[in-house]
């Protein structure tokens, strides 16, 4: 079972989890998605050092959609940079799992992030407390 380290109750604050590429590397796709969505549904901001592969991003959208409900979850905000490098890698690279997915990724609950702006080298998030 994948769990984040135990931390004190956040209270009125906003918790930010910065997850290293090394920690993500050992996880299966669905474990990564579960870890992200569990964090975001708890109201946390999740920052991934190395991001997700395009296929994992596609599954993240799909699973997010299946969990949206009017009572307590209306989805995620997500920003990444730099852009995915997939178009630079060859088909063989991707087949062999050598795809470059290194992109800083910020994910948070849509109802708490008022602005999530991105330019070439800055991601800016304004997060409201629960």
């Amino acid at each position: 079972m994948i769990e984040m380290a135990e931390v004190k109750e956040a209270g009125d604050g906003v918790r930010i989890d910065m997850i290293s590429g090394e920690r993500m590397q050992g996880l299966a796709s669905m474990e990564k998605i579960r870890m992200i969505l569990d964090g975001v549904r708890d109201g946390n901001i999740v920052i991934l050092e190395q991001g997700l592969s395009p296929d994992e991003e596609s599954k993240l959208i799909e699973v997010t959609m299946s969990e949206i409900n009017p009572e307590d979850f209306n989805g995620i905000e997500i920003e990444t940079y730099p852009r995915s490098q997939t178009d630079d890698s060859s088909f063989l690279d991707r087949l062999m799992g050598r795809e470059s997915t290194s992109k800083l990724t910020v994910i948070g609950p849509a109802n708490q992030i008022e602005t999530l702006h991105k330019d070439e080298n800055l991601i800016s998030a304004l997060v409201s407390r629960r």
Partner: protein
Amino acid sequence: MGLFKGLKQSITRVTDRLFADEDQKRIGIYGPPNAGKTTLANRIARDWTGDAIGPESQVPHETRRARRKENVEIKRNGNSVTIDIVDTPGVATKVDYEEFLDYDLEEDEAIRRSREATEGVAEAMHWLREDVEGVIYVLDSTNDPFTQVNTMLIGIIESRDLPVLIFANKIDLDESSVQRIENAFPQHETVPLSALEGDNMDEVYTKIAEYFG
């Protein structure tokens, strides 16, 4: 004997599958909500088959189920290409039922619509991973194309090696900027059009035949 027969049947099945759909590709129409995907799908379907695909509307997430129109034969320059068009729900990472209340929907109806919308987006992602062989990516050219949903979807399409054409829709509107879309996705061909007014549809059909024929 049985082994050879079985092997032969297996090879026949594989080759049948490889070549069966060679002439008829399933083309998914993707993009964010309100880009004009259904308006485009309807125009293509009406121009070449006489029928529409689905209802159009100003309310986001009007299309909440993927809809397929089979055997759309497009004739260009003496050749013809036949495609299946799949009109998909607009992709988003969030759906808030309260946004529908701005369009004079009752709360119950807004909640139902948002639930169907989320199912539709999940369905669209599934189609993209499993069931389409080419993509028409539709953008509203009056909006900023540098959004995370667009970047992620184009990345997903590229990672699957699917042929993709980007359509810069709504060029009939004053605020339209095709250049902004070309700058956002320089690695792909961008075709300007107005699906509503039927502007530049000749080039649209020529490019569809060229890319997906």
